[in-house]
């Protein structure tokens, strides 16, 4: 029968392989933490969307497109704006993760992560559907002039295939993924809340 002091003596033996390796010292510059892994796609997404918006704007301004109707340019402007707003959202998410302070007390640290996952959950529910809906509206406005004068059958086939894919992507794939992602985020939030609860119980 071991008592706690025996366990303490056992614990205080040097850990197996516990010798200080240079591995961490050498790898800190190129190893990614969980936080960095979450930050990266947000920042890259924001940059990619900004570049896309700039590219479309340049195309509209200097591309000699010679569209006849103002609303075609309007569609392009709308696409640029939607991309920029979405880039703004992604950048805000990136900043939210970046500002999580790893040095504060555990309860405050857990709350910061809870707030982040809560934001992700909200974004999944309204940001992505609204983003895709607005982008499709803008695309539709842009396409009006492109389709004008084309054979009706070709236009109908294009619209049919496009609409079918969007409906399938949104109502089947999108909802399935949303549910899965929603459950995953809720599990994480519950886990964090449970640990936070353990800390609060101590108070």
């Amino acid at each position, binding site marked *: *029968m*071991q*008592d*706690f002091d025996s*366990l*303490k003596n*056992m*614990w*205080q*033996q*040097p*850990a*197996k*392989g*516990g*010798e*200080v390796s240079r*591995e*961490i*010292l050498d*790898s*800190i510059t190129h*190893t990614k*933490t*969980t*936080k960095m892994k979450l930050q990266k796609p947000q920042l890259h997404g924001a940059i990619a969307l900004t570049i896309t918006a700039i590219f479309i704007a340049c195309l509209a301004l200097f591309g000699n497109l010679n569209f006849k109707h103002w609303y075609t340019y309007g569609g392009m402007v709308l696409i640029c704006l939607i991309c920029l707003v979405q880039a703004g959202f992604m950048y805000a998410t990136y900043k939210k993760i970046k500002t999580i302070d*790893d*040095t*504060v*007390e*555990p*309860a*405050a*640290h*857990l709350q910061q*992560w809870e707030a982040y996952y809560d934001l992700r959950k909200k974004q999944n529910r309204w940001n992505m559907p609204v983003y895709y809906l607005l982008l499709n509206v803008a695309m539709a406005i842009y396409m009006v002039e492109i389709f004008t004068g084309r054979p009706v059958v070709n236009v109908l086939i294009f619209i049919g295939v496009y609409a079918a894919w969007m409906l399938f992507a949104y109502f089947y794939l999108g909802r399935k993924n949303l549910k899965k992602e929603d459950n995953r985020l809720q599990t*994480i939030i519950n*886990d*964090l809340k449970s*640990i936070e609860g*353990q*800390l609060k119980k*101590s*108070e």
Partner: protein
Amino acid sequence: MNQQDEFTRLYNEYGEGIKKLCLGYTGDAVLAQDLLQETFIAVWNNMQQFRADAKWSTWIYRIAVNTCLTHLRKKTATLVDIEATSLAMLPEDINTKEQEVQLLYKCISQLPETERVIITLVLEDKPYEEIASITGITEANLRVKIHRIKKQLTQIYNSHAGL
């Protein structure tokens, strides 16, 4: 002393203790190594913010505790009822010292998350005042909690060790 030298000193001084904390928290050597690495990357990234009025030890252990507590993992059963836990997951023969230590890590990893952290700091012989500062729990509450966790851990260990 530049940042690299300071970091090396900190790693040499606290690396082993943090590794044990991570081992106790996860009960898994690979995961513990990941958490150790994450902790020291966070230390490197936040070193500029360190204020001289705090202790390096408290500051680093708090980062390690935060890294462990927010580590997202597959759910493992929390052991409260010793009888309900399968002994199959534990080493068959705990005769050697190393196996005893491994068993101790496994037993700690079966406690609720915050209790793992607290008992690990106790085993590291951290003063109660410092444990309170690391975890943000008041000293008075810690004393009560630690007394209970010590009893629980000893009970779990002895049950698994078959003594």
